[in-house]
């Protein structure tokens, strides 16, 4: 039953000597054994390495290591397979990196190790984090633990599904347009995307560098606060990381009183396509937040209708540049050719899947001569207007409240043939990345039939994580949603 405990419950028990890191790690490995045949969240589990790390954690505890020094000592954490971990695979869900082994640790991985976490394995994702369903993984889709016929969301679908299925108490993902928050919503867990630059991107395989950010997936808001506190901070190896000091996010959670806080309800997010049960759950959540003392205020973000178009220029443009490095020369797949150009073309043609090819082509086109000003530059300017909308709203309110997704998890294959339909999945999440804000999704109810989780999104100004966590924690403590586990997770 140790696998069912939250990260905070586990750290407390480990600190009190009520269980060992080896026992906790074994419990998670057993749960993976039981569930992952159905869920398929993991691409790779290194049980021997995990147990060795757990033994080392237990030894460190016996030698006197304290929770203040090592806040995650002995706690299993799993990683999206686009975060470099020395001597472990790093496939990015792509054939082109099928046999790649990381030569170094990402900064977030170094920080997890320093905090004492037990790194459990590699989690499935849409290829190079491009997608909203995890169906774009070259190694097969992950299933939603609440209904294995449905998608878990994406691109951090493996991370969200593993945490929901009680296979691991916490995971890291990455969020470029909603890739942490959207799967968190579909799997009924907490997903936090920090402000752009709050967490180092060193060792995160780049998709769209001006939008990418490492995020956390957990079963409680408190756990998200703990994990963010471990991974946040300036890193000289990421010139875009922010030098501002990292606050004590756990201390900011507070007693659950939201008096004095104003919450903005963006008019433009009330779209006709919103699923009625999602709308009802979010309306009920707003009432709950009001009951806790917060004051809801209607706000306007007039450039919202242009966010999706701007995103689908900027992200593919940056992707086409970033993925130029996969050319069969220094690492990854190589398909032989008569000359270097033919080798590049064949390697990339064979190594990348359909969605990655589409985005590389789109990005190459919008950056090509004669089109740059009309597409990329214009999109970056529209992005400024979107950002200004938010900054203006945050002069009036402390956070914004929206649905995370327009509907609950859909069935595998349902949107696979129409890229634009799939892109619409991210309409509530991607403005946050364009504007560089922070955002969190947390459970706010279930649809009736079938029973699927619904996510509530809170958006905050740059570096507003502490306030978001405070609001999310108050809501979570006042509602019955977060302890609910999918039937598949069993006992």
């Amino acid at each position: 039953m140790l696998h069912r405990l939250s990260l905070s419950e586990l750290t407390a028990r480990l600190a009190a000597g009520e269980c060992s890191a080896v026992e906790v790690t074994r419990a998670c490995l057993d749960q993976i054994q039981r569930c992952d045949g159905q869920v398929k969240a993991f691409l790779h589990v290194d049980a021997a390495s995990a147990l060795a790390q757990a033994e080392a954690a237990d030894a460190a505890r016996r030698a006197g290591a304290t929770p203040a020094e090592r806040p995650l000592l002995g706690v299993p954490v799993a990683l999206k397979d686009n975060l470099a971990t020395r001597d472990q695979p790093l496939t990015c869900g792509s054939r082109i990196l099928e046999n790649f082994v990381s030569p170094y640790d990402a900064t977030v991985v170094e920080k997890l190790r320093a905090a004492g976490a037990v790194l459990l394995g590699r989690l499935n994702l849409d290829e190079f984090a491009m997608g909203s369903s995890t169906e774009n993984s070259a190694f097969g889709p992950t299933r939603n633990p609440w209904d294995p016929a449905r998608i878990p969301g994406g691109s951090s679908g493996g991370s969200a599904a593993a945490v929901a299925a009680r296979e691991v108490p916490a995971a890291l993902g990455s969020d470029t347009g909603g890739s942490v928050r959207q799967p968190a919503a579909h799997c009924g867990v907490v997903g936090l995307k920090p402000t752009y630059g709050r967490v180092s991107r060193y060792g995160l395989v780049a998709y769209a560098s001006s939008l990418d950010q490492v995020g956390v997936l957990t079963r409680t808001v408190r756990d998200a606060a703990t994990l963010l506190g471990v991974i946040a901070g300036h890193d000289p190896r990421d010139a875009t990381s922010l030098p501002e000091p990292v606050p004590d996010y756990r201390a900011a959670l507070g007693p659950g009183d939201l008096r004095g806080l104003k919450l903005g309800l963006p008019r433009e997010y009330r779209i006709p396509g919103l699923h009625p049960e999602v709308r009802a759950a979010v309306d009920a959540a707003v009432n709950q937040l009001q009951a806790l003392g917060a004051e809801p205020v209607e706000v306007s973000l007039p450039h919202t209708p242009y966010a999706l178009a701007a995103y689908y220029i900027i992200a593919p443009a940056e992707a086409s540049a970033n993925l130029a490095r996969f050319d069969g020369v220094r690492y990854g797949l190589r398909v032989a050719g008569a000359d270097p150009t033919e080798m590049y073309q064949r390697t990339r043609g064979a190594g990348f899947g359909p969605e990655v090819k589409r985005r590389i082509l789109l990005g190459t086109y919008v950056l090509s001569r004669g089109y740059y000003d009309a597409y990329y530059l214009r999109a970056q300017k529209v992005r400024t207007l979107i950002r200004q909308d938010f900054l203006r709203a945050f002069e009036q309110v402390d956070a914004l409240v929206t649905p995370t997704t327009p509907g609950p998890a859909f069935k595998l294959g349902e949107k696979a043939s129409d890229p634009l339909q799939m892109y619409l999945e991210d309409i509530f999440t991607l403005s946050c990345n364009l504007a560089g804000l922070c955002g969190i999704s947390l459970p706010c109810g279930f649809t009736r039939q079938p029973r699927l989780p619904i996510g509530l999104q809170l958006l905050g100004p740059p570096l507003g994580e502490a306030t978001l966590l405070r609001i999310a924690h108050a809501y979570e403590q006042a509602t019955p949603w977060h302890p609910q586990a999918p039937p598949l997770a069993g006992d």
Partner: protein
Amino acid sequence: MSTPHLDIRAVAHLARLELTPEEQARYGAQLGDILRYVEQLQQVDVTGVEPTAHALPRFNVTRPDVVQPSLPLEAALRNAPARGQDLFVVPKIVE
């Protein structure tokens, strides 16, 4: 930019991406749809607006210019598809 003109073969060549004729047809049509969708950005007045790249704009980010540890040779070459004499081996470039 009224009707986007997309020569999928030329773009695929720029991207060094080998596509089958079937992929060319499919991606060509899908990209046409996406480009028609993003044309709505033309309606936005962006006169005098600066492009964005960071939530909290940073300028002149520097670090001390000192030697840092780097990847050992073996680690750098570990994933090479072809190697020899501590180098990456590639097809002949110069005739």
